[in-house]
């Protein structure tokens, strides 16, 4: 068995997920926060595709599911940026520290 083992792909996905999580929680520009969320979704996609090849019952289903996830992610990015535009017009900021209208 000379191929790359399943756990290597899973560890890669874990590292990317942790990078995305850290970015989403520490960055202050809302666009970068959205990008970090995309990175986390990508890490989940790697897991789906990896299990579709190396899982207990390998089948094409994992790849189909990853296509669904990519679609959802694209829709989420579009709507998220539209909300950001609307917020920017009203508040003149994209800084997540200053988005606190719903506090108090």
């Amino acid at each position: 068995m000379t191929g790359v083992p399943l756990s290597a792909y899973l560890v890669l996905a874990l590292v990317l997920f942790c990078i995305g999580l850290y970015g989403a929680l520490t960055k202050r520009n809302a666009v970068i926060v959205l990008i970090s969320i995309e990175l986390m979704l990508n890490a989940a996609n790697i897991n789906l595709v990896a299990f579709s090849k190396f899982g207990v019952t390998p089948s094409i289903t994992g790849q189909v599911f990853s296509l669904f996830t990519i679609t959802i992610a694209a829709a989420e990015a579009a709507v998220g940026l539209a909300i950001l535009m609307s917020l920017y017009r009203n508040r003149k900021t994209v800084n997540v520290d200053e988005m606190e209208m719903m506090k108090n």
Partner: protein
Amino acid sequence: MSLSGELIAFIGLALVAIVGGVLLITLTKVVHMVIALVFTFLGIAGIYMLLSAEFVAIVQILIYSGAITIVMLFGIMLTKHQENDAPAKGGWGSFSLLAAIAGFAVAVYLGIYNLDIPVQPTALHEENTKQIGIELFSKYVIPFEVMSVLLLVALVGAIVLAKKDDEEGDRS
């Protein structure tokens, strides 16, 4: 483990992906972060190729490295941003966050590092796109149609949200 070509390709692509992610965290200019992210997406597309998912890899390049990156660049250009995204304040908050993420990473790693599922031969690489099409239109027709409705809703919703509402009370 012998150093096969697949392993070399995996290491290279994984390095590209992870270095892109680390640059996303460490770079200071917002536009540079997005450019670093393109490398991550391309590396992930290569990983899909290794996993014999050619169609998903092409979709990844088209949607992520193309569409989403451009949309994010638009979002950056259309909003006034500080050229340099100031890093978050250090201190206990940042440190405890880092510790929490490290703990999460270790916990998941302990679960997966020796996960050993016997590898079975697959036919995923033979006519990959045709297989996806057959599966999609035989077993997943309803989710596929729901997805199209969802994309329409997202399109209309994004237009409505981003529309300029300067004339108040004017129901246009």
